[in-house]
């Protein structure tokens, strides 16, 4: 059986990791807590900007440090609201169709995302995907430490995780599909037999053309 691996941000949804984080930051228990957390996050913003350009993994680590001290209960409680208010409205019109097409073709559909697992799982359920490979916040005594559990899902690590997932489940990578919007996901796209560029950025668009990979836009209704 083949598997289809989907990047999420920019590929299936128009949001990125920052939007759900902002929602959490702006929805703390009290206005004071909200102001404090938001202020701290703002302080890190320039560093995150630099990291985003240099290394996606460092960016993720800086971003998720904003969660430090939040209780697991509250994170899970707010997850449904994050999904409804942030994620669901940003799902591209044709995303569900594409996922369904893969499911109908008998593929195991896996979302692979730098997002947090409890949010990604809700998105997977909404789209009809089977599994998620996503980041997990490290918890200590019910509170987030601000660190991510290893391995961090980002950049080239996605390719390794796909290889590992395929091996564990007996998928032949030559038969597997991968979908992404970003040139930074080149390793993930290159590891499967059927890569595809979805709403590609200019560099990925050029590359897809050079290698004759399918390239299409999910931002329009099918």
């Amino acid at each position, binding site marked *: 059986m083949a598997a289809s691996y989907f990047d999420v941000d920019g590929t299936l949804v128009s949001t990125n990791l920052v939007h759900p984080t902002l929602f959490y930051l702006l929805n703390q228990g009290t206005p004071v807590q909200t102001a404090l957390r938001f202020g701290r996050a703002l302080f890190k913003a320039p560093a995150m900007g630099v990291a985003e350009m240099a290394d996606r993994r460092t960016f993720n680590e800086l971003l998720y440090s904003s969660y430090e001290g939040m209780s697991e209960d509250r994170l899970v409680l707010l997850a449904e609201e994050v999904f409804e208010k942030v994620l669901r409205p940003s799902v591209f019109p044709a995303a569900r169709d594409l996922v369904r097409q893969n499911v109908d073709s008998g593929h195991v559909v896996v979302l692979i995302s730098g997002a947090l697992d409890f949010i990604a799982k809700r998105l997977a359920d909404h789209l009809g995907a089977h599994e998620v490979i996503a980041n997990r916040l490290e918890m200590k005594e019910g509170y987030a430490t601000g660190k991510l559990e290893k391995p961090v899902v980002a950049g080239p690590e996605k390719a390794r995780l796909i290889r590992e997932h395929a091996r564990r489940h007996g998928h032949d990578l030559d038969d597997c599909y991968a979908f992404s919007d970003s040139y930074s996901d080149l390793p993930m796209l290159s590891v499967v037999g059927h890569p595809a560029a979805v709403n590609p950025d200019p560099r990925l668009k050029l590359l897809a053309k050079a290698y004759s990979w*399918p390239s*299409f836009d999910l931002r329009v209704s099918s």
Partner: protein
Amino acid sequence: MNHPCLVTLEKDSAPRVLFAGDKLVEADLPKGTRCIYPKPPISPLRDVDAAIRYAINHPLGSDPLYAKLRPGMKLTIAVDDISLPLPPMRRPDVRERVLEIVLALCADHGVDDIEIIVATGIHRKMKANEVRHMVGDRVFEAYWPDRLYNHDAEDKDTMVEVATTEHGEVIEMNRRAVESDLIVYVNLNFVPMDGGHKSLMCGLTTYRSLASHHNPETIRSCDSYMDPKKSELATRVTRMGRLANTKLNVFTVETTINNRMFDRPLEFLAKNEDDLDGRERAMLKGLVATTGRLPQAARQAIFDRFPAPYGVTGVWAGETEAVHEKTLERCYEQYLVPVQGQADVLVCGIPYIGPYNVHAFLNPLLVSVQAQGYLFNFYRGAPLLKKGGTLIITHPCTDKFDHEQHAPYIDFVHRLLPETRDAVELHKRFEKKFAEDPAFIQMYRTGHAYHPAHAFFMWYWGENGRQHIGRVIVVGADNEYIPKLLGYETASSMDEALYRARGEDNKSLDIACLHVPPIVMADVSL
């Protein structure tokens, strides 16, 4: 005595000018070669609108259209897609004229639940500007995109199973059309294989339905696609269409056009090279030299720029088969040139455009479609080429594909053809999986790509030619790799190709040249 369009070359005859994609090349063909030229264009109808009105008011085997209309009814109009005519017709396209008249009639009878579906089948979806060109500004402005749209064969929610024939062929069609009180099909018949039941059975159905007849077994059983009585493809499509029509209310409007593909300055391209006057000869030389030197993109842009000045030669309406009979008569009147006897060698230039590459490059898979699919099949009676004969084509066979329209073709040519050229094996081993490729399906649905199954259908399209033709030799290929993948030999010149065709024993050959475009069909008697 020979038909005037059948010219036997003399020793001092001028070189013949053949298309080689978007270039023109000169070829010296030996004395005795029979060149078959298109007939002059049939005179167009003087008043096309009057002919359309007459046809829908005096239909064949059906009540007039006005008698079928009633307020509050659900009406679906289906129109052909961009695959015909080639090149697209100068505005107003005859389909625009038919639509304007049919829609006005509907308005007069209080019919307002109308949707117009471009019957693309699994072809690429037409772009907005292409649809506008075909249906005209008024219809486009009023209906696009909510009530005028492309068929989507992969939108499972909008497809519905209509029936299954006694041969197990499943008819799965566009739900809107099936649930309508009346379907009006507005056709433009370019060649005799278009129209009739094929319009609905290909244009508004799904891959599953199309696979019932677009398969190696059916295509191998065809004896010319252009002679429906001898085409297994037409037999199957007709069987499905007849069954569908027992459940649907279909009113067919068919139109024919003449073969005036080139406008005045280029009209001489259809003429016998020996009959050209001084000015035409100079223009031809200039054209050969210019197309030889210009970059490919510029050549394509030039040819893309000029729609054809086709004239409308007939309009009929009513019951599908009764209408189509008349259409075929007029088609044959335009295209058939009587030819006595077959040839050992058939020489054809491959033009830059085919049904599946409007506004795109004629890629290697489509070269094979043109050669073994269309040009070989432009006959009635017997094939122009003897069984086991040699087909010589002129084309660069460039390894180039349009990434937007023909993405699945690239995989087919570069990944599957190296494994096998056997159509049956390709069908069994790869077709289904390829046809379900989610990435290619998405390109078909949200972009302007052909459905992945189409690449297979294109390969099958050459299958009866492939079974009949002994060898194909390409003159002027710019690489060895693509001809080899397609199963072709290469030659650097026409002389070399003919030398090879003669073989070691230097046997004398009966050579024929089908001088296209415009389209010409050989009516071959043995």
